[in-house]
């Protein structure tokens, strides 16, 4: 095809798509340092007013504490669940494997608002709603498939004979697990911890429904946004973005760098 001209047009087009995708992240960052109450261009003065405001707000600190507790616990739980499923899928064949895998992989295909309602009704019935634990239980179900996928991908690169070799050398299955499988999966496990934490950290629909009075950061944002335009959201948003972007980038870098290493 007519090489250069087309390449330039396509390049511009791809740039436009990326602009659309990253514009909201970019503007949230810019406006968080902007003095205007209703941000637009031309920009107002540089100001850290909104940051000062959120930093002095005890409700937001409480929400941050809640979010940290929820996302770390969720990450550990979901990664454990994901690891067990990935290993079972890697190692075993059994009769109801299809339904077994569906059981862990299906939750993300159900819209969050539906899961939110279902979780709220069910957890209230069990007397488990309205606590931080409620969010953690719900999030572990929602994020475990991500953990499963990452760890399964890693196990896919492992020679199944490695485990058998460990048994032949006299190791028990538990020892093979501890000294062969887990170390091999470690980069995937760490990536999975980061990613599931990021997902949990940003999830608001289910959290909002089941949390009762315990607010996490996204719920605080939701409540501020419902009121009125308040640039505080941009300041919180920047903090939220930085947290999740670092987690996601860390996850990708850890996973991909190991991938390359294991190939060379």
């Amino acid at each position, binding site marked *: *095809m007519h090489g250069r001209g087309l390449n330039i047009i*396509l390049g511009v087009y*791809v740039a436009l*798509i*990326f602009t659309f*995708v*990253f514009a*909201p*992240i970019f*503007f*949230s960052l810019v*406006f968080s340092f902007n003095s205007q109450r*209703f941000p*637009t*261009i*031309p920009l107002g003065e540089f100001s850290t007013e909104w940051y000062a405001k959120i930093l002095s707000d005890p409700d937001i600190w409480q929400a941050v504490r809640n979010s940290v507790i929820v996302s770390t616990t969720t990450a550990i739980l979901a990664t454990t*669940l994901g690891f*067990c*499923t990935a*290993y*079972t899928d890697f*190692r*075993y064949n059994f009769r109801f494997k299809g339904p077994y895998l569906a*059981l862990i992989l*299906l939750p993300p*295909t*159900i*819209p*969050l*608002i*539906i*899961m939110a*309602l*279902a979780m*709220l*009704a*069910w957890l209230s*019935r069990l007397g488990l709603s309205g606590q931080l634990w409620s969010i953690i239980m719900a999030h*572990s*179900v929602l994020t475990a498939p991500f953990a499963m996928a990452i760890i399964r991908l890693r196990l896919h690169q492992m020679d199944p004979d490695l485990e058998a070799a460990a048994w032949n050398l006299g190791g028990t*299955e538990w020892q093979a697990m501890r000294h062969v499988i887990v170390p091999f999966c470690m980069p995937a496990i760490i990536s999975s911890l980061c990613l599931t934490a*990021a*997902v949990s950290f*940003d999830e608001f629909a289910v959290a909002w*429904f089941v949390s009762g009075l315990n607010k996490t950061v*996204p719920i605080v*944002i939701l409540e501020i*946004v419902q009121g009125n*335009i308040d640039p505080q*959201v*941009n300041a*919180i*948003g920047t903090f939220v*973005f930085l947290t*999740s972007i670092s*987690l*996601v*980038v860390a996850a*990708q870098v850890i996973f*991909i760098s190991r991938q390359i290493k294991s190939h060379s």
Partner: protein
Amino acid sequence: MSTKHKIDLYALTWRLPIILWQLIFFVGPVVFMIAISFFVVKNYRMTEAFEFVNWQRMLTRGYFWDSYWYTLFIASLSAAIAMMLAFPAAWALAFRASENLRRGAVFLLIIPFFTSYLVRTFSWYVILAESGVLNAMLGYVGLGPFKMLNTHFGTVVGYLTLTLPLAVILQTVTMANIDKTLVEAARNLGCKPLATIWRVVLPLSKTGFVVTALFCFILAFGDFVAPFYLGGSQEPTLPILILDTTKSGQQWPRAAVVAIMMMLTLFAVAFTAIMLAYRKPKVAR
């Protein structure tokens, strides 16, 4: 015998806890939601029953069906838009970009998927507002201001925030996996560039594209944030209906009816899409 027992114990350790956990916290909620759609609410309290009153109540109301068709329409529309907007970019990344560039682009596009959708939506709110960034920019070239918030346009922009990165990623991966020699063969045999896309690239990517469109549809169909904050919820979508019915008035059974209708619709759409995706292509002559 003892070794066999030991093996079972080991296997069960990895299998059983997950099955139990998912039964309690995934199957449990979904089944219970179906059950409560038959419960009745008396004096603001939900009581166990087996009555069709909620179903009757919701499915005979005009506002439910208005909302149903509107949600179906706007979610399909935005999935179609996402697919079309993504295509040239994905094509460029799949066929024109180097391996490294492609990988870098996909790497970048994964990031928004795991960052706060809520904050991104709020950012769009500020960008699209009457005196917001976009209208200010358009003002410099003598256009506008346009009303973009509280319109279908706003809703679609919100949906695209969610679906466009995914559409680009999945389309790129799909097309990057096409056997390049087939494309070259078509070109060498005198097939025009656009005809090559239409008759070679698209048929070869059918499965991947149908699945991509399905994901875009599911995401838009279930999202309440975009239609609420950017669309102004003048025409409430089904998720907004669930939200309102649950949060105000404690009418969980009726909300459950809406949720079940949504799930049935999603099953139907997914089933049709997957049938389409795996149907044997007709031989082109």
